[in-house]
């Protein structure tokens, strides 16, 4: 009996470890991203489902304090202005714990959004669950999603239509954080343009230097 209990305990521990690993591994290109419901700087709750006309989303994990995020603020606004009306609005998400970085608190997000005149929702990932599920590693970190309306089996034997969000590009905004004018590979623009014209983004994954996401669960690990 004791052995059985031990086995069950080990099994549970194993599953939990697996679940945790799985949760922190994040999305890859081709995966289906989950919708979220997060508080915007205007006080409303925002989900991707609130944008019936969108063809997809430029989801950007970013924040107030990080110099890389600051360097890209104007470019994020430009991306939103350029692509919102083509069906790909920007959704910015601040994933940082404001206890660790007071400058990234919700009230400072409101200040920053107003100062810079953000044209897009600036959402607070208060529980830090969304960034972990997506697998954002730094700020800024872009996940370009394409919306697909697919059929799914319903309980009554019929099929339902539902929107799913497919990850089509993960990475940097462009290849020069210090000077937008000198960026000669505008990864996100290239990727959205590719989707609009029915092609696959190339590259669909890039890396960039950025600030770590501030999360008490991963401090000193």
């Amino acid at each position, binding site marked *: 009996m004791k052995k059985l209990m031990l086995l069950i305990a080990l099994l549970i521990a194993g599953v939990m470890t697996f679940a945790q690993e799985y949760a922190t591994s994040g999305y890859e290109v081709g995966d289906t991203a989950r919708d979220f419901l997060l508080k915007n700087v205007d006080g409303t709750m925002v989900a991707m489902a609130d944008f019936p006309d969108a063809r997809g989303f430029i989801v950007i994990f970013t924040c107030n304090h990080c*110099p890389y995020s600051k*360097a890209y603020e104007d470019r994020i606004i430009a991306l939103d202005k350029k692509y919102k009306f083509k069906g790909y609005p920007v959704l910015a998400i601040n994933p940082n714990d404001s206890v660790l*970085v007071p400058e990234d608190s919700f009230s400072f997000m409101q200040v920053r959004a107003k100062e810079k005149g953000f044209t897009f929702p600036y959402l607070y990932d208060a529980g830090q669950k969304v960034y972990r599920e997506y697998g954002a*590693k*730094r700020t800024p970190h872009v996940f370009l999603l394409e919306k697909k309306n697919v059929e799914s089996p319903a309980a009554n034997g019929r099929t339902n239509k539902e929107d799913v969000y497919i990850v089509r590009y993960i*990475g*940097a905004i462009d*290849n*020069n*954080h*210090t*000077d937008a004018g000198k960026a000669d*590979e505008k*990864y996100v623009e290239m990727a959205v343009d590719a989707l609009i014209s029915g092609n696959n983004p190339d590259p669909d994954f*890039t*890396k*960039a*230097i*950025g*600030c*770590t*996401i501030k999360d008490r669960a*991963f*401090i*000193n*690990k």
Partner: protein
Amino acid sequence: MKTARNFTFRMLMILFAIPVLAGKNPDRIPRMDFDTFESLLHKDNDTLYIVNFWATWCKPCVKELPDFEKIRTEYNGQKVSVLLVSLDFPNKHEELLIPFVDKNNLQSEVIHLIDVDANKWIDKVSSSWSGAIPATLIYKGEFRKFHEGQMSYEELKTIVESEK
């Protein structure tokens, strides 16, 4: 009279500025693109190299710098080498990096990696690096260990002790 005083003041300013300027070699923190820097990640000898990527504005980086300095001091004279690779923005070399190194009296070797096209080189440091800093590469010959995020002094010390 006023002009004369202004002139004297200016001359004094210049006189004071000369030794200050002469004492500071602007190139004492070398600026490098990745192609130049890359050989520092592949030195093939019996020294243990600790290569830390950081920036003056990065709080967790700044917090762990004293640990790297401490390791450098503790293993002084042994085959352990610490290299601090600043990823400060290229245009902040004089404004942020040099004053920071001076103020904190950093004794480890510091270089300024000014290659902004990071997607081209991050994987060449380690394919497991997302690009977030701090990040640390420790290597010696065939041994290579990469760590993204802050490192504790104990973690650092354990690796140095077992691999030096």
